[in-house]
């Protein structure tokens, strides 16, 4: 199980953002994307997750392998913590949510409505969702935003377990994730030269 | 010159009036936008040319 990205170029709002990005992600490996605000981490991750077609280049091995977690958590304020988790579990055909609750220390909050959680608790719930997807590749956009030190450690622990089970993780962040073993890829060199998108080239 | 429109003058004249106004509006709007866009494009192309 290898995710391999070759010569990827992505656009946003009609502008080229990144180009020539290539990397591989083997089983058991974690890769952290870094780069200043607005360099295009979110856009790249969305392309890898298949939410946005890349302008150029290829992403192989991603099809139906990816669990994506973006800036927003996809939680329903009026469903309880367990109901939120259980829904996502059954979408992915799984049933066990206990281990995810335990891993992110949500057992005490289990019957609380998601709307009544604090910022960090919401985030923990959003991350717990990853564990009930059963997908091998986690694609995470700033996963530890709003988390305190203890929760960051929980997160790091969860990622490590996932890696040991043969999963892999691709993450964008600005802050420490507590994962020293992760490879780091700085996106700054891949900033696209100003140019039009391919689809506009007919007009040049 | 003016034909005798009889009691229907209002209907006929306003029909022609509305039509002429609307056609002029769409034509003028199209032409004006064409000019503006063309000017913008020319400016960029010339700047690039230099």
């Amino acid at each position: 199980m290898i995710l391999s990205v070759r010569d990827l170029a992505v656009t946003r709002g009609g502008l080229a953002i990144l180009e020539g990005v290539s990397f591989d992600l083997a089983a058991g490996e974690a890769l952290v994307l870094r780069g200043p605000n607005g360099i295009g981490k979110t856009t790249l991750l969305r392309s890898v997750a298949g939410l946005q077609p890349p302008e150029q280049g290829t992403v192989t091995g991603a099809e139906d392998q990816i669990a994506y977690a973006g800036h927003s958590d996809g939680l329903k304020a009026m469903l309880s913590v367990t109901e939120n988790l259980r829904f996502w579990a059954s979408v992915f055909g799984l049933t066990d949510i206990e281990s995810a609750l335990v891993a992110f220390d949500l057992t005490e909050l289990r019957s609380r409505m998601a709307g009544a959680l604090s910022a960090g608790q919401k985030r923990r719930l959003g991350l717990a969702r990853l564990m009930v997807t059963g997908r091998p590749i986690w694609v995470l956009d700033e996963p530890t935003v709003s988390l305190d030190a203890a929760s960051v450690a929980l997160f790091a622990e969860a990622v490590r377990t996932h890696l040991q089970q043969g999963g892999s993780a691709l993450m964008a962040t600005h802050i420490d994730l507590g994962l020293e073993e992760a490879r780091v890829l700085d996106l700054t060199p891949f900033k696209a030269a100003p140019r039009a998108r391919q689809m506009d080239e007919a007009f040049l | 010159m003016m034909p005798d429109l009889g009691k229907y003058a209002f209907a006929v004249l306003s029909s022609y009036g509305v039509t002429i106004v609307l056609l002029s509006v769409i034509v003028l709007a199209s032409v004006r936008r064409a000019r503006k866009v063309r000017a913008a494009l020319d400016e960029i192309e010339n700047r690039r040319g230099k």
Partner: protein
Amino acid sequence: MRALLIRDLMLAIRAGGGFGLGLAFFLIVTVLVPFGVGPQTELLSRIAPGILWIGALLACLLSLDRILALDWEDGSLDLLATAPLPMEGIVTIKALAHWITTGLPLVLAAPVLGVLLSLPIPAYQWVVISLAVGTPALSVIGTFGAALTVGIKRGGLLMSLLVLPLYVPTLIFGAEVARRGAEGLTVQSPLLLLAGISFGVMALLPFASAAVLRINLR
């Protein structure tokens, strides 16, 4: 798929919106009409079948933006798109959930509200039948409109504008059934046409909705 349906139903009941909204709006329209056009029974009973249909249609129209917009805003739609569900399935389930939470209650409430508008007795059954046959089409067409405008900032307005002309045939045949029923005429041909629209739309439109949603998500 079942999980999605159950979640949507649960949300509709719990977060209000879906479930009550349509019904409440239906009620509002029917209650306001006598205030607006005046209380004469004879006039009211003439327009009753039509008003019930219009009320039902507006109630559907209003609850449409809950079908997809909320899921879009909080990121659930992105996650669903990466989940192992076919997009056609997602939009069908969404339309089904919308019908259960909006269309079905409307069908059930129509006879009660008919009383407020002095609906003629023979019309009751036909109003219910025509709504039961017609509202699924409204939900499916509405899902197409919602998919078309999801993520657009001025979505709500645009969606109403886009969906309105698509609703016209359903409304015409539906109201025709109800009106003919009220007058004791034969309703067979409009009812068949209405059913035809419903089935045609249910069979074909989900593909268009799914295609449109895929385009919008990228």
